[in-house]
């Protein structure tokens, strides 16, 4: 039983308050580091889950693979799971009510693929043998009532060709002139429905998805299928897949980039990089805070045991032995603090995530995805090792100092006596300004430079942490604010297959509904123009102009969707922008309003900018957008449009177009005229035949309004009616913001706690160590008021010095954070002034309060006991 370790244990027990404060410091840091890692991992897991549901759970796909190659790939050492799929092609869907979707598009999946591909079963069961089928549930609302679960139906497969009998590619949109050449008929039994697959949203394949069972045994030697795999080690996928392809003789393969990017494997993935770089900064800040707290605790402990160490040295303890006792103290505290901290961190995050999940459920992701607490087996040992390292670093210098204590100095505590006259010299001005109390305070601080510096350093670090985290919270809100836009309308209706008359009727009826304040009916015409470089704004010139199509003369292609809003809304819009609606109605000379604002989503960093440098009075030549732009025989119709006004307000129902376009708002009258002009050549143009109406409503009370609008629309179409009730979405956005707040403010609180613990620990011990000194002052006749004054001055000096150094460093840390956020979001730099003020006030409050509390205990001391004190 090592006597030195016994000594350490007893000392710790005796100074229970300080021991507990130190353990709390360790618990806090372990908890926070653990929590940060766990959260980052959980978010990444969430993204991965989402990617699996939208793009499928596999890493790569090999296309057009024959059975022999299939075997090679499936049996390959790298392949963990393999699945087969195939596109069978189109089959007729005669009863389709969607004019541009008269087909089914058949895919085949084997049993594994059915479970891994991004399809979601909503009713019935998966197919289990050949001849069984799943169909998209959208079919039921689009004329497919006959396609019920359990029914066996014969499907007419065939090929789409153009008028010259050339086969059309699958993603060619439907054209009335195309032909369908039947090739075979097959019967399938429907076993279940699937949700409309995510990939349908981005595909122009004019068919509803149907998924049949692929029986691997039925694949002939001449058949080709697609093989998708999950690799054993996803990180090697970019090397192994090409290897496998080369060895198997497969030339066509692709990666599932969505899932790979969220797993952090794909290169240049900004979102995951941002997540982890921010997490790294946070951990670094936590580590800095922790080292300060724990270092301080050890420094204080060593200081208090100075006499003990001196005695041990005088009795013959070697420096190495003394050093080891300090480390032993670290071991004991670590063994208690680290496990508790890790448990607290995991527990805390588990609870937080379940609360947050309740807020997020049913919102940004579909219902079966949730923020799971992901505990990679590395989290615990990583945190433990990290905190152990922090403890070691913190204890190192105090340990060395303890071992270097000369025995006699320690016994006499004469390092406190050995003072250079110059060290404690203060100017006479000090006494004049602050009195003897102030002079004593200053001398005290000067003579114990090292202790003063350590205290100021702790305070500084707390300040830096607080400012950094406040900045982080503010930027995070701004960032998510950019992502989750505030929606300016209450209800949106999107209705298909309407005649112009039906549209008019719907518009009239809806705008007359009770509770509707404003109603915009949005229609648009695609036009483009060729602009000179100088006509573009700085953002596009610097960043994207080179990507636009260019003529030899140096003009760049830019799209101008002409947008009309419905009469009422046009009047409102012009009035809002200080314009007269009348001046825009004339059909002799066309005048339009340029909305000169765009945002760069989905390009990162997300930024808002002015696309063009056009002004009032400028004229544009707008032409229709050709379907075949390079055909020399076709000339698109052109009109001249004068820019009657430039604004950066979007009208109701119009949002920022994609990169390379800007909206031109025109009156109904002008719209009709230009529409007729375009109609004449509509077969060559990208012409929207306006069978589709979009209404945007602002209502003073939207309850029940969505249903009323739906009912009105039902009278005019059997097609799909899509009504979006924004209030529900806004609730969701609010919930998401609340969820983020919980995380972010939770962190700030914990960080502040670390800071406060630190300050409290340091200052109260500083005061306690000078017990003898204070007793002497009292014995010389210093009054309690004088004593208070001295303490107060010391507090002020500490606070000022700490802020002097802490503020600038905190601001630097904010700039660093701004740069990190700038990887994904772009916004102007700002400092969290409110929080800085709180920090300043907070520092002084804490310092004063601590000193007062510590001082009050000393005031009650019996003088002679303190003078004789046998301090441990």
């Amino acid at each position: 039983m090592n006597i030195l370790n016994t000594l350490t244990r007893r000392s710790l027990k005796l100074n229970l308050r300080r021991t507990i404060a130190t353990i709390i410091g360790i618990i806090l840091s372990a908890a926070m580091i653990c929590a940060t890692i766990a959260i980052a991992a959980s978010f990444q897991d969430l993204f991965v889950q989402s990617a699996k549901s939208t793009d499928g759970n596999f890493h790569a796909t090999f296309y057009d693979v024959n059975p022999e190659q299939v075997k090679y790939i499936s049996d390959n050492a790298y392949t963990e799971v393999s699945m087969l799929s195939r596109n069978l092609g189109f089959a007729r869907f005669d009863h389709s009510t969607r004019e541009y979707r008269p087909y089914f598009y058949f895919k085949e999946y084997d049993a594994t693929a059915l479970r891994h591909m991004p399809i979601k079963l909503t009713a019935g069961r998966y197919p289990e043998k050949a001849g069984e089928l799943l169909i998209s549930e959208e079919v039921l609302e689009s004329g497919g009532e006959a396609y019920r679960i359990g029914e066996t139906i014969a499907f007419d497969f065939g090929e789409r060709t153009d008028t010259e009998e050339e086969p059309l590619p699958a993603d060619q949109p439907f054209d009335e002139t195309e032909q369908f050449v039947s090739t075979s008929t097959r019967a399938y039994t429907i076993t279940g429905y699937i949700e409309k697959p995510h990939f349908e949203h981005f595909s122009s394949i004019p068919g509803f998805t149907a998924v049949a069972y692929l029986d691997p045994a039925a694949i002939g030697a001449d058949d080709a299928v697609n093989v998708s795999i999950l690799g054993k080690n996803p990180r090697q996928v970019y090397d192994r897949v090409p290897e496998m392809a080369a060895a198997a003789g497969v030339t066509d393969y692709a990666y599932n980039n969505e899932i790979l990017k969220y797993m952090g494997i794909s290169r240049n993935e900004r979102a995951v990089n941002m997540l982890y770089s921010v997490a790294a900064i946070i951990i670094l800040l936590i580590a800095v805070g922790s080292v300060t707290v724990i270092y301080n605790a050890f420094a204080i402990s060593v200081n208090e045991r100075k006499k003990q160490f001196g005695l041990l040295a005088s009795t013959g303890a070697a420096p190495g032995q003394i050093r080891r006792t300090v480390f032993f103290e670290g071991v004991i505290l670590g063994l208690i603090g680290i496990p508790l901290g890790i448990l607290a961190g995991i527990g805390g995050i588990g609870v937080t995530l379940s609360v947050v999940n309740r807020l997020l459920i049913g919102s940004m992701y579909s219902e079966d995805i949730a923020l799971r607490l992901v505990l990679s087996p590395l989290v615990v040992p990583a945190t433990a090792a990290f905190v152990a390292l922090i403890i070691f670093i913190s204890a190192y210098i105090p340990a060395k100092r303890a071992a270097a204590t000369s025995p006699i100095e320690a016994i006499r505590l004469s390092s406190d006596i050995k003072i250079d006259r110059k060290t404690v010299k203060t100017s006479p001005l000090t006494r004049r300004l602050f009195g003897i109390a102030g002079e004593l305070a200053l001398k005290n601080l000067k003579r114990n430079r090292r202790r003063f510096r350590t205290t100021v350093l702790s305070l500084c670090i707390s300040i830096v942490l607080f400012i950094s985290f406040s900045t982080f919270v503010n930027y995070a809100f701004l960032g998510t604010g950019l992502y989750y836009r505030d929606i300016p309308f209450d209800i949106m209706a999107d209705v298909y297959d309407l005649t112009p008359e039906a549209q008019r009727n719907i518009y009239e009826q809806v705008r007359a509904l009770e509770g509707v304040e404003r109603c915009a009916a949005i229609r648009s015409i695609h036009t483009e123009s060729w602009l000179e470089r100088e006509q573009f704004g700085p953002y596009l010139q610097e960043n994207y102009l080179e990507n636009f199509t260019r003529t030899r003369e140096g003009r760049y292609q830019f799209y101008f969707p002409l947008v009309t809003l419905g009469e009422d809304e046009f009047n409102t819009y012009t009035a809002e922008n200080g314009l007269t609606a009348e001046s825009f109605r004339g059909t002799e000379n066309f005048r339009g309003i340029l909305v000169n604002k765009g945002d760069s989503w989905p390009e990162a960093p997300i930024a808002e900018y002015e696309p063009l440098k056009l002004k009032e009075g400028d004229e544009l030549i707008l032409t229709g957008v050709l379907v075949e732009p390079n055909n020399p025989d076709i000339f698109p119709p052109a009109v001249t449009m004068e820019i009657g006004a430039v604004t950066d307000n979007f009208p109701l129902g119009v949002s920022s177009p994609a990169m390379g376009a800007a909206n031109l708002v025109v009156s109904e009258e002008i719209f009709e005229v230009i529409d007729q002009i375009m109609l004449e050549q509509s077969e060559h143009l990208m012409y929207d035949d306006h069978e589709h109406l979009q209404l945007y409503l602002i209502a003073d009370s939207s309850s029940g309004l969505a249903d009323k609008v739906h009912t009105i629309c039902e009278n005019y179409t059997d097609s799909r009616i899509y009504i979006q009730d924004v209030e529900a979405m806004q609730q969701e956005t609010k919930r998401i913001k609340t969820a983020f707040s919980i995380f972010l403010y939770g962190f700030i609180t914990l960080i502040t706690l670390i800071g406060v613990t630190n300050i409290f620990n340091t200052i109260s011990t500083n005061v306690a160590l000078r017990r003898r000194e204070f007793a002497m002052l009292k014995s010389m006749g210093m009054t309690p008021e004088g004593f208070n004054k001295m303490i107060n001055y010391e507090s002020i000096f500490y606070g000022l010095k700490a802020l002097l150094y802490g503020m600038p460093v905190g601001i630097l840390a904010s700039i660093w954070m701004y740069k990190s956020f700038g990887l994904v979001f772009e916004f102007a730099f700002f400092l969290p002034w409110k929080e800085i003020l709180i920090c300043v006030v907070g520092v002084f409050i804490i310092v004063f309060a601590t000193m007062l509390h510590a001082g009050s205990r000393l005031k009650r001391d019996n003088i002679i006991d303190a003078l004789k004190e046998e301090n441990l």
Partner: protein
Amino acid sequence: MEILRVENLSKVYGSGAAQVKAVDGVSFSVNRGEFVAVVGASGSGKSTLLHMIGGVDRPTSGKVFVEDTDIYSLNETNLAIFRRRQVGLIYQFYNLLPILNVEENITLPLLLDGRKIDPQFLEELLETLNLKGRASHLPNELSGGEQQRVSIGRALINRPALVLADEPTGNLDSKNSKEIIDLLKLSNRRYHQTLILVTHAHEIALQADRIITLADGRIVKDGVIRP
């Protein structure tokens, strides 16, 4: 047989005009088994001299040879071991560790060495020190005299070559003082331990074999009383 030789030892504090020469070029030697008293007025440098001999206060200049080893040429670790095994220091203000009990305080040098206590020897020592039955008490449960006896026990436990006592009775009443001095003399006679004792009390000094008188950091008289 010479056991201690001090050559030109000095200890200087401060610098320039404020310089204080606590010990100023002291040289002497002591033979094994001698009982030497060092006397002098307050501030004459006696304690400082003793601490330098004991290896707990580094001199400004000069050398200290114990059993022919220049102790200040040793590295920190070896110097510590020297203190552990060759020297027993007794202070005026006991300087016990308040959180160790009597037995632990006494056996501290042994425990630092990682050696096992010979229970027999310990028993004897406690008996000699008149501390039987107090082995598990803490220092704050003992009287001044008892505490000083514990610190003597600590100094003797390792049977060191040199026992250095710095005003060991300064804080005690006359009865206790006598007991302490008797104890020290006993260890000197029985175990042939060299004893150097600093005191400003003449009656104590007269019990020694040899008296060295210090004034202003220098030896002014060095006389043998009992040859």
